[in-house]
């Protein structure tokens, strides 16, 4: 990215006063968040605060009503884009619950996805040989066996394998903005280290990561530049990494008590 462009539009993602809900029930009540290239942000919060809703809306999941606010992705209005357009433009969601798709071969799926993205970028599609070479290299990063590629997408994978597979897909697709929704949940410490190591090695000055997590644990391995606390549909506090440690020590109640509107 050129310096001029950075100056003109330094934000990768700008969420402005986002209000959204499901079937008349408000979940997000005015979220503001700015992410710049090269940054790692963590959004933390107790259950039901709206963390996963935020991730789903950013990825384009249908079924949410956005009643107010907007989301700018570079210069584009993200909320007007189809999920596949967002993905082709570099938005990636690592699912909290990766979906099992029986009958769709993993290699076939990932090659189709990568080639859609490459086509969108004006790059030549990879043939089977080129794709396999790329995939083998990326698999090492996540310590995944090659047999996984012969199996249907996520079918019969263990919880840990599913999460590693998400990050493996991220490694292959090389998104600009990766949103990791509770990627740490259900992982034992060894798997957590592998996943975190993978994520860290994918970090570059021109991409960004948004970690959605309930626990501080993940942040021992992926160090965020900014930590935000989401509570009742709003970001009620933002800070540096220290904030996550304080949350670990004192829990969420401490912040909630300090917030004037909840006191």
């Amino acid at each position: 990215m050129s310096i001029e462009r950075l100056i003109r539009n330094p934000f990768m993602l700008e969420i402005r006063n986002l209000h959204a809900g499901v079937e008349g029930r408000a979940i997000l009540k005015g979220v503001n968040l700015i992410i710049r290239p090269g940054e790692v942000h963590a959004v933390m919060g107790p259950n039901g605060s709206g963390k996963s809703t935020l991730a789903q809306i950013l990825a384009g999941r249908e079924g949410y009503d956005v009643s107010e606010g907007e989301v700018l992705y570079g210069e584009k209005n993200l909320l007007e884009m189809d999920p596949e357009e967002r993905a082709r433009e570099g938005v990636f969601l690592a699912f909290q619950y990766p979906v099992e798709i029986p009958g769709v071969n993993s290699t076939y799926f990932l090659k189709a996805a990568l080639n859609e993205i490459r086509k969108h970028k004006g790059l030549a599609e990879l043939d089977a040989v080129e794709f396999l070479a790329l995939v083998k290299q990326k698999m090492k990063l996540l310590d995944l066996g090659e047999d996984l590629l012969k199996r249907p997408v996520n079918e019969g994978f263990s919880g840990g394998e599913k999460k590693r597979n998400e990050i493996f897909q991220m490694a292959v697709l090389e998104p600009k903005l990766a949103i990791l929704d509770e990627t740490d949940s259900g992982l034992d410490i060894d798997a957590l280290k592998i996943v975190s190591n993978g994520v860290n090695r994918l970090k570059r000055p021109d991409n960004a990561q948004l970690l959605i997590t309930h626990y501080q644990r993940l942040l021992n391995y992926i160090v965020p530049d900014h930590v935000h606390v989401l509570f009742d549909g709003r970001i009620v506090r933002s800070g540096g990494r220290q904030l996550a440690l304080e949350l670990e020590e004192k829990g969420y109640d401490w912040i909630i008590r300090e917030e004037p509107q909840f006191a």
Partner: protein
Amino acid sequence: MPSGYPMIATPQNRETSVADPLLKSFERLEKSRGEESPSWVFPVRKAGLARFAETGFPTLRDEDWLYTNVAPIANLPFQPILDFAPRDVASGSVDQLPLGKLGGVRLVFVNGSFVSDLSVLPQKNSRLRVENLKTALIKEPNLLEMHFAKSARVDDNPFTALNTAFFQDGAFVHATPDSTLEEPIVLFFISTATGLGNTSHPRNLILAENGSRLTVLECYAQIGEPTGFTNAVTEVVVGESAAVEYCKFQDESPEAFHVASIHAHLGARCNFTAHSVATGARLSRNNIRVKMDGEASDCVLNGLYLTKGDQLCDHHMIVEHAKPHCTSHEYFNGIMDGRSRGVFHGRILVRPEAQKTDAKQTNKNLLLSDGATANTKPQLEIYADDVKCTHGATIGQLNDDSIFYLRARGIGLETARRMLIHAFAGEIVERIQCAAARKELDDLIWDRLEQNPHVAERR
């Protein structure tokens, strides 16, 4: 009406005229056959006729026919296709049919009659015998008498009874003990007859003796736009420790009627895998019967049906566990579009002796239009106490979570839908062990789905 022949009942009127053409045909057939057949055949035919006379065509009141109205078949003028039916089919045209690219042994039947010019028989002194049933009845009357109409009992269903009375010809496949044949045997049943009610009754007997291994493929297809009725029966006898893979592909014209009954008898420690893939016919019904009559055998039944327009496709299975330690698994997927209907009815019957039975049944249905219907009816009838029997059925549209997952990786909505529909069909096709048949059916099913306007349609 000549004495000694029973009256034939029909669902409309139990005293009506369907009886006359049936009886006339039967008498005419009897005369035309003369001395060629062994003497035991005629009583078998007569028993079939008597049974059909008793039951007539089934009606919707019959529990086994709840969702499938066969009145369109019952109302057809009864016109069995006899030996004088046309059988002139250009030799190259068989190669163009589904499964036509497969080499090796093949038997070709046109409107029910065997066409030797189009067929390829196994080499002499081979341990495998493949010939048309008529020839086999003359050459091996005793061997055939031991097995013929023993698994396919005339009281199983009216169509098997009707076939037993009127069968013309079919295939006889005999694998001697411990023989192995890697290449599949392909049986083609080609309809060309356009006369309303023109009926062929193919009759096949597959005899896999102890320790033998073989693969038999049946293809029911059309040349032109035939409107006839095919009523096939295939009996399969699987000996001890034998392994048989059987695959039926039904691709008849969308105006045709098709009923096929597969009756399998399984000995001990054997393996029987059957696939039924159905894309054709206005109304089709597959009766699949398996009797597991020896210990520790394994049976897998797979089915895939694609229907559109006003098609109806019905699969009706009865798997009988008569001996202990047997497993049976059924996997059936249906994809319905237009105003069509898919029916699955699977009964698992576990006899008191059949302890340690492991039976599983799965039926999944994908509806591509608002007008399409799926009926699914699992039925467990268990008389043993130490068994594991499960069944599951789903009817629905494409899974939104799966579509979103694919789209979130950059795959467009249309492509995502197509991937999932093809995958749904592929779940069954990939179970076909015979690689050549699997490959060809995979391509065929892919093409059929791609022809379907709803497959890539944006909702």
